[in-house]
């Protein structure tokens, strides 16, 4: 086994005096799906924001494909191949679906292949091609989430982070979106990090899991060997 694609080592981060992340460590192997689960306020979003360069850590290290990316800016991290689908299906509302997707290939490294990647994204989400001229602001929640995923794929990521992808979506749509995520993982060998509150579904999809509580990693292991009782205790901190 080669070295992990993403390694997070003892990451600390916070907002003012409040520390949201304490010594958080985890790693993702090439082509692996992992999930980070935890309650609201456990520090999951802070963790991925810090990894993606949208929030500055106070200490610790993030290594992506062996390179230290801890202090790199967000756009440099994206062009290295680490993309994020932010929480809450965030689209550029006044731009068309097509333009939203093209925005995803904003980094220089992705622009050369924009046409090719776009075709790939439309194959994955045919419904987006049908509505490519519509402003993203007029789409439904599930469609907007697809736009956000497609946009992240446009940067040709080697590792993709989904922050609470199922938030506010209907079960049928969540199921469909999870199917696409598995497809992305299998076809492109993209490593995937799922940040979730929907524990059951995330565990079924992921190879391994990490549980966060109050900024700390409290439990980790392989998804198929999970002990329900221990998981519950770690999840709620009882």
């Amino acid at each position: 086994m080669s070295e992990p694609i993403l390694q997070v080592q003892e990451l600390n981060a916070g907002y003012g005096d409040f520390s949201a992340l304490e010594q958080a460590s985890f790693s993702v192997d090439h082509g692996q799906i992992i999930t980070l689960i935890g309650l609201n306020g456990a520090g999951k979003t802070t963790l991925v924001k810090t990894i993606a360069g949208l929030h500055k850590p106070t200490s610790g290290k993030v290594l992506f494909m062996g390179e230290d990316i801890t202090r790199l800016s967000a756009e440099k991290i994206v062009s290295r191949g680490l993309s994020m689908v932010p929480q809450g299906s965030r689209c550029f509302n006044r731009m068309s679906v097509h333009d939203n997707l093209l925005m995803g290939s904003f980094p220089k490294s992705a622009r050369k292949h924009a046409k090719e990647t776009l075709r790939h994204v439309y194959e994955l989400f045919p419904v987006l091609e049908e509505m490519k001229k519509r402003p993203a602001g007029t789409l439904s929640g599930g469609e907007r989430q697809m736009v956000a995923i497609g946009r992240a794929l446009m940067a040709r990521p080697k590792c993709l982070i989904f922050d609470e992808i199922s938030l506010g979506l209907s079960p049928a749509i969540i199921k469909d979106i999870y199917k696409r995520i598995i497809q992305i993982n299998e076809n492109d060998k993209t490593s995937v990090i799922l940040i979730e509150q929907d524990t059951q579904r995330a565990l079924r999809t992921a190879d391994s899991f990490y549980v966060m509580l109050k900024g700390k990693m409290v439990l980790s292991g392989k998804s198929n060997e999970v002990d329900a009782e221990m998981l519950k205790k770690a999840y709620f901190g009882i």
Partner: protein
Amino acid sequence: MIGKKLGQRDVVVLDSIPMLIICIALVFGLYLSCITGIASNNAMRYMIQIFLFITLGEMWNLLSGFAGMTSLGQQLYIGLAGYSVAVMTTKFHMGLGAGLAVGVLVSTIVALLLSLILFKMQGMYFSISTWVVAEAFATLFLSWKFVEQGSGMTIRVVPYPRIGEICILSLMICVVAMITVYCLLRTKVGLGLTAMRDDITAASAVGVNVFSHKLIVYLIAAVFTTLAGGIFFINKGIIYPENGFGISWTVSMIFIVTIGGTGTVGGPIVGAVIYVFLQEILARYPGWSNIILGIITILVILFLPTGIMGTLQKKLRFEIFSSKRFSFAKHK
């Protein structure tokens, strides 16, 4: 832009060669009327105002309408420009060109330094901070002996430029400013700006460098606001801290952009023309003018939220100076 996205039918984008010819002809016509003296001094007085306010409006529109940075402190650069010209001509006996050049230099340095502090703030906090900084400069100039404190400075050069020359200069600044905005919006930077305006977090998540985008826009706005402000005070001949650094500059920019149409390149032209004529009419009713301007702004926001230009473009399905971009992958 908004009209184009919301409509289902196709929108006629008037950006072709004929439009370019009309624009060049219009500019050339204005230029000729200035040098040949067809336009009377009174007409040129209006034209100077209109050209300068178009420039100021375009710049404020670029900041607020396209980059989402609603600055209430653009008067800072107008004041710096006026004082640079006054100091260079009166104290150092240099020409007006040197005054404007120093103004641009000073503004650029101030803008660079301020960007480090101001860009840490967003939304309302950014707006208020820009205003506070401008007020701080006003206070500084009020108590600074070198610039004659509150008694103000006059701009003295021999020979003083004629009104026709000032008019041509304003026209040039206005045209260059509009070309700059138009071109900027069609580059990758413009694309990044549109994304930032819609969702700043999502924009940085796809790799838009928010800081550098803001900096480019802020610097361009500072430079052109300086140039327009400098010419305004060359035309006026005298500057005080209150009228150099006054909030009324930004009030007029907001009026022009809101009336004309936020986020449209054509909007500030319509807004500036209306503003200059309204100002002239309202000058007869001192004390009422700001109230009337305020009422008009509120009415426009209520009934024409996209401004005159925005509403016209949506109703008649056309677009001038479209900011449609995408250079790296063509629409099908």
